[in-house]
């Protein structure tokens, strides 16, 4: 029997979309290997209530590790617990999602078990002894194909590479304890501070509205936020020029040195499309660009482009999206 492990990320007691993506990916592999999906969920008291949602997406078993020490991310205790579970010999693979937390955790777990790791994976197949993956490199300009040998395989998926899919399973819960008591961790997260602004962040949202210098001043980001609210399921992103100027927090930056995103819909507002920026969003499913300069490189990769003044177009688009959502 070959079971598959899925790491279920949460923050502040709420499951992250990454958790559902990991469970969905694990389900596919477990089905072809005739094994079970085991999700691992860490959090403060009460986190066990989230197990039902993991079961709804295909977890046969949810291991719940509730501890006051998991109020904040506790990388050492969580990595030791995941590695302990994954090292039992019953697993073929473990799935993480390459969010800020997953990128921190997956290499810790792989190193503890001395097994190879595939990072930021956009496509994968698990067949017999080999795992094949694709991983964009060189700022997305080169696709690298790797073969990973050794078991269990640790795979960290690019956010959005696998869409969460419901596939209800019993989701039997089992409570477990961390072999490293939280307070003994050498690395202590003392606070998790949520940025102000949009309800959904770049890791969660299927739609991303992004703004660049074409917005002219920080205050005009309000127009981008308004469009995001009209969608209701959108997060706000920014270019490096804009985060460097302090118009938006650094964590909003999409690009080569910022977040790598693959939303269903990406709307670039007043963004010319510098290579630095394209590297972070070129794998989005549908791209819309609004820019004054019709020669801007963003139009080369945009499925739909509108040439014009973004400050004039955004309010009209926001009103139209509101109207369309009303009818839906």
């Amino acid at each position, binding site marked *: 029997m070959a079971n598959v492990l899925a790491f279920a990320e949460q923050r502040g007691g709420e499951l992250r979309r990454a958790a559902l993506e990991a469970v969905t990916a694990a389900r596919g592999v477990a089905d072809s290997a005739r094994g079970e999906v085991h999700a691992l969920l860490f959090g403060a008291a009460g986190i066990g209530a989230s197990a039902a949602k993991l079961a709804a997406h295909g977890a046969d078993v949810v291991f719940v590790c509730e501890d006051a020490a998991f109020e904040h991310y506790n*990388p*050492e205790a969580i990595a030791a617990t995941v590695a302990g579970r994954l090292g039992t010999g019953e697993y073929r693979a473990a799935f993480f999602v*390459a969010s*800020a937390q997953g*990128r*921190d955790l997956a290499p*810790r777990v*792989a*190193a503890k078990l*001395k*097994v*190879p*790791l595939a*990072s*930021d994976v956009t496509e994968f197949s698990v067949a017999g002894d080999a795992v094949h993956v694709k991983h*964009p490199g*060189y700022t997305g*300009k*080169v*696709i*690298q*194909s*790797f073969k*990973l040998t*050794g078991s269990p395989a640790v795979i960290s998926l690019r956010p959005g590479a696998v869409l969460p899919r419901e596939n209800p399973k019993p989701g039997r819960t089992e409570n477990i304890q961390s072999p490293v008591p939280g307070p003994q961790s050498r*690395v*202590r*997260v*003392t606070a998790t*501070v949520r*940025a102000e602004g949009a309800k959904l*962040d770049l*890791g969660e949202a299927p739609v991303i509205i992004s703004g660049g210098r074409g917005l002219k001043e920080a205050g005009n980001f309000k127009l981008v936020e308004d469009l995001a609210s009209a969608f209701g399921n959108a*997060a706000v992103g920014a270019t490096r020029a804009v985060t460097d100027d302090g118009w938006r927090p*650094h964590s909003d930056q999409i690009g*080569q*040195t910022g*977040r790598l995103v693959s939303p269903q*819909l990406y709307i670039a507002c007043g963004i010319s499309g510098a290579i630095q920026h394209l*590297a972070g969003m*070129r794998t989005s*499913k*549908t*791209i*819309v660009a609004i820019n004054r300069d*019709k020669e801007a490189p963003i139009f080369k*990769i945009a*499925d*739909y*482009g*509108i*040439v*014009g003044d973004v400050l*004039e*177009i955004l309010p*009209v*688009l926001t009103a*139209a999206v509101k109207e*369309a959502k009303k009818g*839906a």
Partner: protein
Amino acid sequence: MKIAVLIKRVPDMDVRFKIAPPGTGIDESGLKFDISDFDGYAVEAALQIKEKQADPAASEVVVISLGPDVVQETLRKAMSMGADRAVQLKHDAPLHDPYVIAGALAAELKTGTYDLIMFGRKSIDTANEATGTIAAERLGLPVITALSKLEIDGTTLKMRRELEGAYELVECAMPAVVTIDEGIARPRYPSLKGIMAAKKKPLEVKPAQVGEERYKLEKMELPPERAAGRIIGEGKDAVPELVRLLKEEAKVL
């Protein structure tokens, strides 16, 4: 304070890459190379820590790079910024498995007694974002990743990590391994004096201790081109058509 900074030589990304036969590497002809972005931030952060010490001359910043002899140029660049000495872990064939790369780096790091070991959070070419963390695990040291801020209070590191729409404040005692995100420091340009001084700084060459790779590169290819972009109109009059396409064609609204 003794600090090691691990740096990688990478091509300038502002080009259209070509794949070289037999299809497992890029064609490097005509490309410019430099320190990988995040590694440059790590070098700068290390130099600033050294400069803030009561007696900077008593501190040392050592830069280490794994690769063929061309990485010496990258090490000299870091020394021209201000690093004190360099170590090349010589290995001519390209390596791809972060576990193996981290092993070779850890073997060298073990021989020094560093208070702080710094990596860029990822290299800008292969972009696995794993080597620093795996090296730390192999050294048995704590590791904190993707730092946008790093302060030292006595022997304690006080740090900030950016998350999606949030950030974490983290503390850890030294010795420790950290990986550096953007936002921490803009790398300085080497001065002429720095460039001259770097030529005389020690650069030691040692064979890299390389294990067998279990994460093997099989193919490199250029991504499929996106269908050519389509401009659907000008100004706000194009909005109704955009909304129609988002609904009916892209089905995202």
